[in-house]
């Protein structure tokens, strides 16, 4: 399969991720969308690595996965803290700071 297929798929994934962040109000689903964006990048990395025959792309994916895991940990912790005080995790409820 040519490179472009992978890239198009990756771009679609990236866009879906973006739309998810924009449209969903549940932070859990927003996290998933963010993961989707990250993984779109990962897919592109892997595809390019294969295309260029360069290992550094594959390597990068591992770093990304690690970092994403750390990020999600922090995000979930934040959500737990918020849920404890507010009993909701709807992000649109969090609009006290504005102006």
């Amino acid at each position, binding site marked *: 399969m040519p490179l472009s297929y992978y*890239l198009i798929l*990756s771009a679609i994934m*990236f866009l879906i*991720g*973006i739309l998810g*962040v924009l449209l969903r109000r549940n*932070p859990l689903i*927003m*996290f998933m969308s*963010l993961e989707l*964006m*990250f993984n*779109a*990048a*990962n897919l*592109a*990395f892997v*595809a*390019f*690595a294969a*295309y*260029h025959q*360069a290992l*550094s*792309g594959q*390597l*990068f994916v591992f*770093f*990304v996965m690690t*970092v994403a895991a*750390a*990020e999600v940990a*922090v*995000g979930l*912790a*934040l*959500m737990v*803290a*918020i849920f404890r*005080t*507010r009993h909701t995790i709807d*992000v649109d409820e*969090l*609009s*006290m*700071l*504005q*102006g």
Partner: protein
Amino acid sequence: MSINDFLAILPVLVVLVTGVLVMVADVFLPEGRKGIAALLSGLGLAAGLGAALAAVPSTGTAFAGMVVADGFSLFLDALFAAVGLVGIGLAYDYFKRMRLQRGEYYTLLLFSIGGMMLMGHANDLVMFFLALELLSIPLYILSGFFRARLASQEAALKYFLLGAFSSGFVLYGIAMVFGGTASINLEGIVAAVRDGSANLTFLLVGAALLVVGFAFKVSAVPFHAWTPDVYEGAPSPLTGFMSSATKAAGFAALIRLLLVVFPALGENLAPVVSGLAALTMIAGNLIALVQTNIKRLLAYSSIAHAGYLLIGLVAVNSSAAGDAVAAMLFYLVGYAIANLGAWSVVVAAEQAEGRGLELEDYSGLGRKYPWLGVAMLVFMLSFIGVPLTLGFWGKLYLFRVALESGLFGLAVIGIAASLVSAYYYLRVVVYMFFRDGEGVARRDVWLNLIAIGSAAAVVLMALVPGDLLQVAAQAVLRVP
């Protein structure tokens, strides 16, 4: 891997190791003695600062070209360590007052500083990404440090969501750059561009996405939206630290990246950065005009200053690149000093539960506490760019660079924006001196020391600005 590899990033290592040590030590510190964590962190940062100032690190690349050590990174190491020290000073008094003295604040702060330092050393897109996350994730947590305070929670979640969102762009940008050049190493990218093997379209898309990602970090409009909310919600000492240091880290990344890609893409990318600069200066200052909360006002002010700095970034794409980088570094230092000073006043004036942050609460403060008042006056004047402050010289150099590289339009927008800024900065002075009120401020040792010390630095260094500029000018980058 040799000792030289470690020496190259010695300040980073010192700071990160201290962070681990503080984390461990914190477990053994009894409740009520957590201030020792601050002391330990301070010592570690001082050591890091010493390492940077003593120029211990060897220069050149290390760890197989993953990191680089040069004048630029050293300068930033010193800057971050110094800002971190002040940040700890701000936090110590503040959290003691708020009865929230905890070791993990300092640990996380140190990790974040380590990430910032690493950003200055990064020579490989992996390192940029790692440094970005290393500096960001602790800040997400720290923003929500007041776990029970709604504003703090909201700030943390907003920062986190939008930060991750922008990381996505960075990541996708890196992927595109990799796709375009088959390399994630800056030297490799340069080589690919030089020998013509690079796919410039992929490179351009990637570079643009990277600019977006880091523009988020420096709060350039329209990627600034998180800034006011997070700055308002986060604990004040953290905001003071963040607004001074994160911006510098973001610009460090932008400078190094754009120096690499501008030769090939300057024609396309420079207008983008110009647009960001203009938009940031205009929007930042205009919105700051209508703020009534001091933290939000300073947040928009920090956005506005990012706009001025972006002029310098545009000038990197010209024969005056050297001057541009020097001017930006100088400006960052001047801004950091005045900004930390201003936040120290904010921290001193903040009352429990986030009260005392409206401009109204500052009424008469300057008359009641003349030292604090004069210090705040100096910071505001420096922000405006009135002579005999560092801010004046910063603007002078930046505008000089702008004119040198023919950016007349941006220079004019810059001065118009400065004019607008004069209004809201002076309004702070108006409240502090020209109005009567019952405002109270703390007379905490560290806060006052920071306020007065920063004010003195802003004025005294302005009398002999040559030395600092000399240092900034010598902080040259190792261009791959």
